[in-house]
């Protein structure tokens, strides 16, 4: 067995389907041995990064669409068979990098999101900044304003407008529906922050806040998750 033949069967080898020929080749070839070792390390690290959920099918769909747009993947109609990357074993072995790259992207997004949350002073609400938030619904409780919270509110409002503008081609009724959804979740965020302000060590209040932001993330994901013509 040579290196090319070994790489052709590499995906199965990494999943535990090993032949005597492959093992013999691995013992005699330092290049293939190093490659297997590196890929196993990446797979182990990827599992740690994404301990609970693997990327949703939308991630695969988006990656496939991007690869198709770049001409790296041919569609079923063009190829008449299974979708394959061009080239030979080298590209097939590189395919294993895609789930790792997707996991790293998701982790980076979560880390950036959490860093932005931590930069917001926890004792302050954004109720008094209602005027600066175009999608606010008008919470009733009193508030303490803060520059960090003002920045967060403006940033959220800007993001919401960008999202709605991105949906502009989808029709006014769809934009109106998402605008209402964003108003609802922003209202939840405001009330959750108010609850957290009143009960700073209360786990329930903190859970409300996490739930509210989870809903906001859901609105964004479902709004942006559309097939392109």
């Amino acid at each position, binding site marked *: 067995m040579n290196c090319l033949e070994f790489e*052709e*069967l590499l*995906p*199965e080898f990494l999943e535990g389907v090993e032949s005597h020929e492959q093992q013999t080749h691995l013992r005699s070839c330092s290049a293939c041995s190093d490659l297997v070792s590196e890929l196993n390390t990446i797979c182990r690290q990827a599992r740690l990064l994404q301990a609970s959920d693997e990327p*949703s*099918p*939308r991630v*695969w*769909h988006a990656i*496939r669409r991007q690869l198709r747009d770049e001409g790296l993947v041919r*569609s*079923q*109609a063009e190829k008449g068979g*299974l*979708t394959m990357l061009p080239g030979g074993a080298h590209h097939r072995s590189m395919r294993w990098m895609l789930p790792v790259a997707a996991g790293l992207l998701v982790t980076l997004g979560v880390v950036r999101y959490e860093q932005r949350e931590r930069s917001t002073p926890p004792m302050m609400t954004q109720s008094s900044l209602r005027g600066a938030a175009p999608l606010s619904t008008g919470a009733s409780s009193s508030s303490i304003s803060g520059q960090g919270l003002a920045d967060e509110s403006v940033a959220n409002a800007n993001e919401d407008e960008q999202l709605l503008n991105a949906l502009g081609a989808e029709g006014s009724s769809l934009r109106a*529906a998402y605008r209402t*959804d964003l108003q*609802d*979740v922003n*209202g*939840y965020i405001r*009330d*959750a922050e108010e*609850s957290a302000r009143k*009960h700073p060590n*209360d*786990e*329930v209040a903190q*859970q*409300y806040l996490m*739930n*509210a932001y*989870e*809903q906001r993330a*859901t*609105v964004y*994901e*479902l*709004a942006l*998750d*559309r*097939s*392109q*013509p």
Partner: protein
Amino acid sequence: MLSRQRARNLVVVVVLAGVGLASGEIRKEYHFSVGRKVNVSIINQYGPISVKPGVKGQVSVTAILHSDKVEVDQSQGRKRVDITSHLLSGADEESGAVEYIVTAPPDASVNLHSRNGTLHAEGFHGDVTLEGAEAIVDVRDVSDAHVHVRTLNGPITMTNIREGHVEVTSLSGDVVMSSVNGPFVQVNSNSGKIRYDGEFGGGGEYFLTSHTGDIEATAPSYASIEVVARSEQGKVENDFQLQPRHTSFPIKTGSAFAGTVGKAASSVKLFSISGKIHLKKR
């Protein structure tokens, strides 16, 4: 040249002209030979998707396209079958709709996505993930597997879900759960109502929260639960005689209650910012 591995996963594509269908509709059928625990993913923009258990070793997909302004992309990997509705230029909610009727082995994991239409999955013991902004979700008879549901405004119905993790996120769609029991059940709602009717069994954790939506939980008199309920601005009612327990927050009558029933095997938490909460006894 197909390897031996790929030869086992032979794809047969049969395209049938839509003579018997409504004018302009096109019917396509796909059959995939698969191994154990295949992941079946259907990404649809508009239209319903129904997935039910079928014969072992095969995934069958019937797609009814409402017009020629949408096409179906399909691919198969080692352990995946991916079906995607691909909108073409000029497609809208009507012309871009595709109805999917799918059968898969009972141990398959199923991922369904459609902006609208009904997402239906039943009878699986692989993970089930259903998502759609306006989708109407109906999941039933799933055991020993995780169920994830995310909608914005579509109602969600879950029936006879056992021994798995259940996670639901919904904004304004009502969530109705009947006989849903497992190690972890979580519902995160905004204004949608949450209705639970079950045992709260299995020694699990049940976490039902909302922003303004009402929460109504019904359990049998023999339930074994440790329950905490609190609404910041809404009314809270309880039909059970609870053995009191300590909480980290003050129990204000009419706004919160906490205690145990029976041996307190399961943990039940019912929280809402302004919705009403009612723990009923069946």
